[in-house]
């Protein structure tokens, strides 16, 4: 079971959380002006990296807050967690060990 470092509560077990998919995909300000293909990409297209991936997580059975996390999809190590709205941290890959 993953151990996830909620930026508000600290380390808690995975069962308290819910993963909300890829992070840093902002909803367009004026959707009406977006072309069909671009809107389709916004809705459905996600990256699937082998390595560090930015994800949204919800501490649903805890503080109820959403936050972002960098998780290594190979090792499942959490490289960083950070508050929603903060920029993606620049993390060196050697920190990626669990």
């Amino acid at each position, binding site marked *: 079971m993953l151990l996830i470092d909620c930026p508000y509560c600290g380390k808690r077990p995975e069962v308290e959380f819910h993963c909300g998919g890829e992070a840093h995909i902002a*909803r367009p300000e004026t959707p009406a002006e977006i072309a069909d293909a671009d809107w389709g990409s916004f809705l459905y297209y996600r990256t699937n990296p082998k390595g560090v991936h930015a994800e949204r997580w919800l501490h649903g059975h805890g503080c109820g807050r959403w936050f972002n996390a960098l998780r290594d999809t190979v090792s499942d190590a959490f490289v960083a967690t950070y508050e929603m709205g903060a920029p993606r941290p620049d993390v060196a890959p050697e920190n990626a060990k669990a």
Partner: protein
Amino acid sequence: MSQPFRLPSGGRIDRKRPLSVSFNGKRLEGFAGDTVASMLLASGQHLAGRSFKYHRPRGILSHGSDEPSALLSVDWRADRGPGYRDPNNRASVVEARDSLVVKTQNHWPSLETDIGAVNDLLSPVFVAGFYYKTFMWPRTFWDKVYEPVIRRAAGLGEAPEVKDADRYSNRHAHCDVLVVGAGPAGLAAALAASADGEKRVILADEGLEPGGALLNDVTSKIDGKPAMDWVAESVSTLDARENVVILPRTTAFGYYNHNHVCMVEKVSDHRADAPEGLARERLWQVRAGEVVLATGSHERPLVFENNDRPGIMLAESVRAFVNRWAVLPGNEIVVATSSASAYQTALDAKNAGARVSIVDIRLEADCGPELQTAKDAGITVRSGHTVIRALGKKRVSGLVVAPIDPDGAIGEKQTLACDCVAMSGGWTPSVHLFSQSRGKLRFDVELDAFVPGTSAQAERSAGACRGIYDLAAVIADGLAAGRSATGATDTAAGSTPQATASFTGFQPVRVLPTDADASKVKAFVDFQNDVTAKDIRLAVREGFESIEHVKRYTTTGMATDQGKTSNMNALGLVAGILDRPLPAVGTTTFRPPYTPVSFGALIGPARDELFDPVRKTPIDGWAEKNGAVFEPVALWRRAKYFPQAGEDMHGAVARETKAVRNAVGIFDASTLGKIEVVGPDAAEFMNRIYTNAWLKLKVGGCRYGLMLREDGFVYDDGVVARLAEDRFHVTTTTGGAPRVLRHMEDYLQTEWPDLDVFLTSITEQWAVIALQGPKARKVLEPFVSGIDLSEEAFPHMTVQSGFVCGVPCRLFRVSFTGELGFEVNVPADYGEAVWKALYEEGGKHGITAYGTEAMHVLRAEVGYVVVGQETDGTVTPDDLGLSGLVSKVKADFVGKRSLARPDMVAEGRRQLVGLLTKNPDEVIDEGAQVVDDPHRPIPMRMIGHVTSSYASSNCGRSIAMALIEGGRGRIGETVHVTTPGGFTEAVISKAAFYEVKGETADA
């Protein structure tokens, strides 16, 4: 049974505490400290079960958790009644105590005489892949003949027939360092890791006492003292440290992400005096900062003909029985080995009084100091010999051996009479937990073994589980691992104890050389699944080259022992046949659990009503008293209907639905999801989340809100009331409440953090009582204070706050039936009292309690949709005919842009319509498919499906709703609906079937 093979002295047993166990109805005697295996051997009983496939007689192979053969059914508390028996317990790890009742398995009529043993004679039939090859044809035989026969033959023990009567507990723990295994490496690691008195250390070991292999060792010295003295001193040092927890009888069975290690502790199985109610086992979920794996190694059996005969055991196990349990497994012991370690067995057994000789596959030149030591002790050593076969059936009676000439030819055979064989093919590090942690294994040619390579988590291995076998080196390695786990960089610091040099080294052998016809010989590789070398050869010949394929085809290594004793022999055999280096064949994946774990331990207290707690409404008690039939809806239990004497569901629902249309019905709607949306930006937030316009909704007004996902499909719906400028009372579907709140929070927190809004779930705070029907107002009137119920003062789709029965109330004038209706929201604690008052008053007006089934029929009669029934995540508002609820004015809301995508506005989408069967009494199946011509060839194009279907007493016929391609343009057309027997005809209508009379909801 007496104990003729018990040695007069020695052993780690308490001779002052005799005990007895019932074995197949006979009395088996022993002492505290015994296992059932050591008691059986003390009594001279080697035969301990019948094998899985061939029903061959099997004995005790091992002394530990890797035992594949001696599997027993154990009734742990026969004196307490049923529910305490479980099958497939390894005799070698069942601690003996009074009142245990154990039985052997997999035989009929008895262990001694087993009809199933005929399989052994039929073995040419039961080749590898037998199931795949045999049960192919004829197809019709599968259900009636093959499957029942296979099911009866499958498995080893008998599953318990009643539910487990024991209790199980579970516990979470955190530590800085978890040490798995309390042998010399683990003890050393725990000593080093806890030395600072600060680091919290947990030391867990599957055995009943610490020591590991040293428990079997009476000759090694550490710092000049017997090895077990060092163990005792180490344990007492650790015990004295407050930062150390020692857990005996605790098996670490699973190594998961982020150093989450699951262990199961035997709490009471070994205690004759266990008080009733004490948990049987405890699941430990440990989150460790660092892990030290000191899990030891497994001895490899030798593979030769009839190597499974009772009396043939692993060499280290023979040593363990002699030294630890003071039992001589035989009087005439042949040690057959390719490993130096087995010489110690020979020496110890000889010291204990057995006649011993050694057959070594290795040449003299390849042996170490062990050879001379054995010779000096007067033991005959036959070096460069192979074992051709074992003699005897229910007990080994001899071993046929022969020298191997330098050219590889088999020399002159010789039969060595014996009643016990101690065999060793070398050692396999136990890398199970390391591999489970997703560490990468590395093949070490020198060691002929996979050892831990690259770690994936914060762990390190120490001692035999990484191929270090010499005692002094093992202790030094454990100390270094313990220090490194504390973060020390100088891991070599401190003094290392001196220890007697161990006999180490072995020559890998896969299958012993023989001149017998290899295609006829039964030489077992996997004892538990009855897989022979010949089966593996056949699999390779048939083209299975990957070990993962060979494993599945032959089932080698797939038994409950996870191939602890068999994996390396199987791998080596396959590599040898294919003439590839062993790592090229690969190794199989190790998965939890390391040893079998009871379901009880895994679920702990989460069983029965605690497994899936039932959510009940405040009115549930009344419903139960009034004969409701319940159904689960999401996590809730809801009253489905209230049958009167002699009524079935159909009759009850017909009566309930008629009562609502003709008088008044009362319905418990408390499960409706309720969310309060509060804050200066509440209306703006509602505007963005729902398709409707909210800014202009007056305080006191209600609106039916429709919510989409960003992809434009209907997500949820419900009535929303504006209680104040900055306060909305939102209702959701019963099942949708949690996800709707999450959906709202998601947008609020991640997309619009600028909005000043708070969301609060109030589902459980309010009980909701729906009064529906022409007389609803009359029932309610006497109880209301502070609210004018008249049509003018309180029109449809409005809300007022006041009092009902003197209880604060949010009163909604809403309807989910088309009739005049009110929903009375009162604080949950008052729900039942208000319900009772209304119900009693309603008696004057013909009030009828109705359940969810009638609710569904009533809403369908007037064409209201249920999200999740009419919708399936691919339905747009327009598909439902609800485009009127979608604001054309708002620039944006969640899902708006998607509604303009080409596929969302394409012609021919499935639209919600009604379906009227030609036969008005026929109720079609929900989910049935709709086609326009049933005579088309299969696969037939389907043009829609039925979403709801009921018998409606108010309409006097069946009604149904369906999503049909271009449906709204096809009203009046006949379509064909699938039925269990074929098709039936129905006519498309609009999706509303009943015209409300009198004062309607929409008046």
